[in-house]
């Protein structure tokens, strides 16, 4: 009887689809809704939540430290976009060239850092960028007669270390996305262009770039999310969430500080919702601007 019920054409689809929907509702939709609700409340663990309307958002708008976090996250995002789109694209084009040998070797070398966790990569980079004379980067600078630098004490130097870490971990991943995109461009286009006398640069600008557009937009979209939501890289480099003068504080770092460290859950939820709104606005604008919505349907 139960078997016949499960096997009937009407019920079977739900047996396949419902388990995931349940998991999704409990561990994704509910937390999201709960965050939105909490952002209008004053919530402290172990106490009754109190409705405070827009107070949290009001306070956030005048919160200088939050502003600092937003600026840091935005700068980080812009720098990662400026590096992690053009360079991986260039490497992909080089590796994809038909005269290229040892492609697998190059792909693997660039890709494997993505498999290290941020804790491991962060530990390594913190020591590489250590302030002692003997740290890797300072030793190398020493060969050129440059005095040892205190990388993690200054705003600009700190960001150099952060960007170096991001570049190391993500170049290979983005490069593989571009390589997958390049595979879809037929060789005939390049051959035809060569016959017409197009220079390598013209071929890149007129064939490769336009045909890689969907890949580029995809990489851009996920990089905007990842850039604005960065936190643990900073946490690892500064060995905790408290960098000097908040030079490494990000939006999610502030969420963590308010929610986990200060038990100020409602305020933290408001930080999260603001992050969500910022990322959605930037990405939707970007997608509308690049004409992605028109193309989909």
């Amino acid at each position, binding site marked *: 009887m139960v078997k016949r019920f499960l096997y009937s054409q009407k019920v079977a689809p739900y047996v396949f689809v419902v388990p995931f929907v349940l998991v999704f509702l409990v561990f994704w939709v509910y937390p999201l809704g709960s965050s939105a609700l909490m952002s209008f409340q004053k919530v402290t663990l172990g106490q009754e939540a109190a409705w405070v309307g827009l107070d949290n958002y009001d306070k956030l708008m005048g919160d200088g430290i939050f502003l600092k976090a937003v600026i840091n996250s935005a700068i980080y995002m812009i720098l990662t976009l400026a590096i992690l789109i053009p360079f991986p694209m260039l490497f992909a084009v080089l590796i994809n060239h038909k005269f290229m040998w040892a492609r697998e070797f190059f792909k693997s070398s660039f890709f494997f850092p993505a498999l290290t*966790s941020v804790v491991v990569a962060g530990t390594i980079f913190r020591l590489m960028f250590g302030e002692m004379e003997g740290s890797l980067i300072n030793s190398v600078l020493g060969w050129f007669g440059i005095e040892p630098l205190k990388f993690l004490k200054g705003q600009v130097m700190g960001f150099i270390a952060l960007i170096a870490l991001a570049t190391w971990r993500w170049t290979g991943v983005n490069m593989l996305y571009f390589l997958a995109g390049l595979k879809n461009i037929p060789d005939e286009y390049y051959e035809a262009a060569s016959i017409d006398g197009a220079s390598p640069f013209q071929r890149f600008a007129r064939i490769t770039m336009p045909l890689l557009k969907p890949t580029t937009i995809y990489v851009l979209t996920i990089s905007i999310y990842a850039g604005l939501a960065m936190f643990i890289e900073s946490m690892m480099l500064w060995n905790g969430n408290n960098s000097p003068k908040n030079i490494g504080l990000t939006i999610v770092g502030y969420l963590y500080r308010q929610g986990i460290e200060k038990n100020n859950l409602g305020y933290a939820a408001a930080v999260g919702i603001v992050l969500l709104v910022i990322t959605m606005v930037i990405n939707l604008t970007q997608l509308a601007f690049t004409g992605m919505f028109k193309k989909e349907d």
Partner: protein
Amino acid sequence: MLKKISISKYIAYLYLIMLCVIWVIPVLFGISTSFRSQAEVVSTGFRLFPVNWILDNYVTILENTSTAPILRWLSNSVFIAVMHTFLVLVIISVTGYGYSRMKFKGRDTLFFTLLGISFFPGVVNIIPSYKIIDVLGWVNTAWAMIIPGLAGMGNIFLVRQFLRGIPTELDESARVDGAGDFRIYFWVILPLIKPILIVCGLFSFVGSWNDFLWPVIVYTDVDKMPITAGLLLLQDIYGNYRMIGQLMGSAMLAIIPTLLLFVFAQKYFIQSINLNSGIKG
């Protein structure tokens, strides 16, 4: 003309090889540091290889089973990552089948609604998710890391795309022979989607192994935590710059499993990475 190609080719090679060397240096630096004494790390500058190779750092790490039981953490991580990967594969293949092969009202609307909702940055959910785990009594248990991650849509999207590229003739002929959906799923579809499941499985394993922020929040019990949360504890135990060799040694032990996986499954990692594949940061 031919000459011009070969010169630019050599420049490209030189450039790429130089970069690959730079790319490998951080890990070589980590390995080398893990075999050097603290005195040597502090006194001599950067060298690719230690002056004196020592195993003391690893001995200290492995002998410390009270405040930092690293083998315990590694085995916790293995259990969590294997269980998580297995359940991911079950749920994405079943759900992918549902959304591509079964016919029910509002199927695609439901799918794209879920996909749209899933695009929000998940970190916003971290505090309410902790509360749910607390209510379920999963704090400090492996379930806290095995189950919530199953709510990802990225891999389901991939399986669905993959299945849409496979003609339905095979499952239709099985249906004519009297097979029901469960049999078609298990005997026809599962073997067909093996390539995409391998890729999703590998990335799920690595994602689970490397997950960091969430375990730091849900584990306070030293014996229960996975390796990533453990490594954060070590930052205090082995100090910021006091026991650099030990810190590096622990970090190196933590990446051995993922690097081994990479060595054996390299082609799946670097060839089949596809648009929208769900890699976790």
